[in-house]
């Protein structure tokens, strides 16, 4: 059966990593048609056509689809839904905004953050902040799914799938006002090979510079615990955890992070975890491959210097 996959497109640009990981998760379900929707989406569509395993790309360009507003994007997907048994997307904030709306309009349940595909109707997903993995079998005729990208490898490129332009959609229910997007030379948090994260123990926005220096030395992405974001030490888009981003880099360095369940939910699938904390009882040490009990204000600069 056929799969419709909503590509991650921001301001006309394809997020290759998230989209290619979702393609790799969806390939087993059937022929994958990728939908690139936005105010401009043609360039994203051309790029999506290179992903291995993509059978076809649909490009929908419409001012009403810019900024991924949920109402218009959901209407567009529902108008295409008839041809597909699975309607899927990477589990980004954009897709989590849109896909439950799509599911309700189709009178089916949504399966959020799916981490494993058992068969075309049976899926695994983490619940309770990843403290349990639930295997569920859906009885719905159409399956609406978001895939947790950190658990799937990105599909390769080199394909040249056909691209078709389709009509757009718009809605007057909501309108875009502005984006405040952090500009950074660092790698993207969810696809970085190394992530350096700071917690409440760092103590201030100013002192986060110590952690950032380590990240920059390693060419790493920056992350933060919820406590650090809540305290205003770090921006919201750095948050790793149950309700923030889920990452699984080759190396995750947690600095001044105690290791609350909610934080572990976002990073415990990292290949190697290093924890630096002055509290030897901190729960983060229970999941760390290498633990160092030390004052971060001396240990982190020393680490930055010696790496």
């Amino acid at each position: 059966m056929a799969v419709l996959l909503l590509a991650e497109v921001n301001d006309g640009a394809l997020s290759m990593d998230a989209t290619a990981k979702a393609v790799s998760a969806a390939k087993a379900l059937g022929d994958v048609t990728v939908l690139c929707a936005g105010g401009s989406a043609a360039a994203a569509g051309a790029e999506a056509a290179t992903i291995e395993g993509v059978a076809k790309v649909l490009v929908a360009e419409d001012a009403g689809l810019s900024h991924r507003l949920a109402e218009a994007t959901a209407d567009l997907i529902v108008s295409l839904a008839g041809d597909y048994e699975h309607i899927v997307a990477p589990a980004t904030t954009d897709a989590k905004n849109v896909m439950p709306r799509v599911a309700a309009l189709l009178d089916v349940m949504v399966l959020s953050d799916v981490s494993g595909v058992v068969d075309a109707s049976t899926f695994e997903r983490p619940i309770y902040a990843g403290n349990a993995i639930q295997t569920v079998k859906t009885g719905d005729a159409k399956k609406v799914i978001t895939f947790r990208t950190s658990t799937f490898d990105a599909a390769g490129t080199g394909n040249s799938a056909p691209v078709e332009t389709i009509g757009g959609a718009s809605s007057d229910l909501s309108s875009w006002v502005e984006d405040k997007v952090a500009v950074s030379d660092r790698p993207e948090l969810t696809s970085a090979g190394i992530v350096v994260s700071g917690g409440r123990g760092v103590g201030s926005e100013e002192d986060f510079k110590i952690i950032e220096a380590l990240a920059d030395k390693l060419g790493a992405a920056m992350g933060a615990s919820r406590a650090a974001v809540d305290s205003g030490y770090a921006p919201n888009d750095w948050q790793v955890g149950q309700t923030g981003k889920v990452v699984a880099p080759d190396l995750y360095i947690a600095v001044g992070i105690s290791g609350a369940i909610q934080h572990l939910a976002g990073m415990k699938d990292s290949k190697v975890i290093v924890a630096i904390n002055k509290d030897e009882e901190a729960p983060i040490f229970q999941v760390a491959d290498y633990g160092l009990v030390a004052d971060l204000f001396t240990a982190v600069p020393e680490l930055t210097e010696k790496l």
Partner: protein
Amino acid sequence: MKVLVPVKRVIDYNMKAKVKSDGSGVDLANVKMSMNPFDEIAVEEAIRLREVGKAEEIVAVSVGVKQAQETLRTALAMGADRAILVIASDDVHTDIEPLAVAKILKAIVDEQQPGLVLCGKQAIDNDMNATGQMLSALLGWSQATFASELSVDGDSAVVTREVDGGLQTIKVKIPAVVTVDLRLNEPRYASLPNIMKAKKKPLDEKTAADLGVDVAPRLEIVKTSEPAARQAGEMVPDVDTLVAKLKEKGLV
């Protein structure tokens, strides 16, 4: 304007969920239950809207088991004016799916005619992050998810949303469904006098059947298992040893 705030009774966020040995689910018997933390933020925001004269009445709604009365009493103690409990199950281990909850909430919205539904962005038990979006779809309303700032002005609301790249601000027509994120506010604690007063506030009970909603699940739970445990690691005495270990593994 009336504001409707759906609240869910979930495992307390400080408790670690334990998977039942027979794989049938997470053990919730004799576990501390509380209001879903995101829903507390929604209740708080509704109260703040009333405090600045943007909302007249706050109605808290919960869908689930009879014990969700306690969750509603918490919302009333924080400051909600009245509450509606929709009993949809008599087993504390039955999680009513977001689609069914959204259908029940739609029936309540049709009856109560709020201008705004404020709800948590996700429940910390099923982590589905779906009910608000689904309710908005069923109502044909606008939606603003993951709100970190909200201002209501006449027939529209301006909402700043926490998204992957940073923050996005959108304007939505009212009536709207807004789902709230962590940074929107810090919920107040209910004072003892308010806890006492809450016991006298109206709490209506209905059943899903009264509202004509079928809550039969669409998803069959095949099994619930423990996640793969991480191997115990080692403590290193100093930075030099750490650097050596990381180099040995080819990580840096």
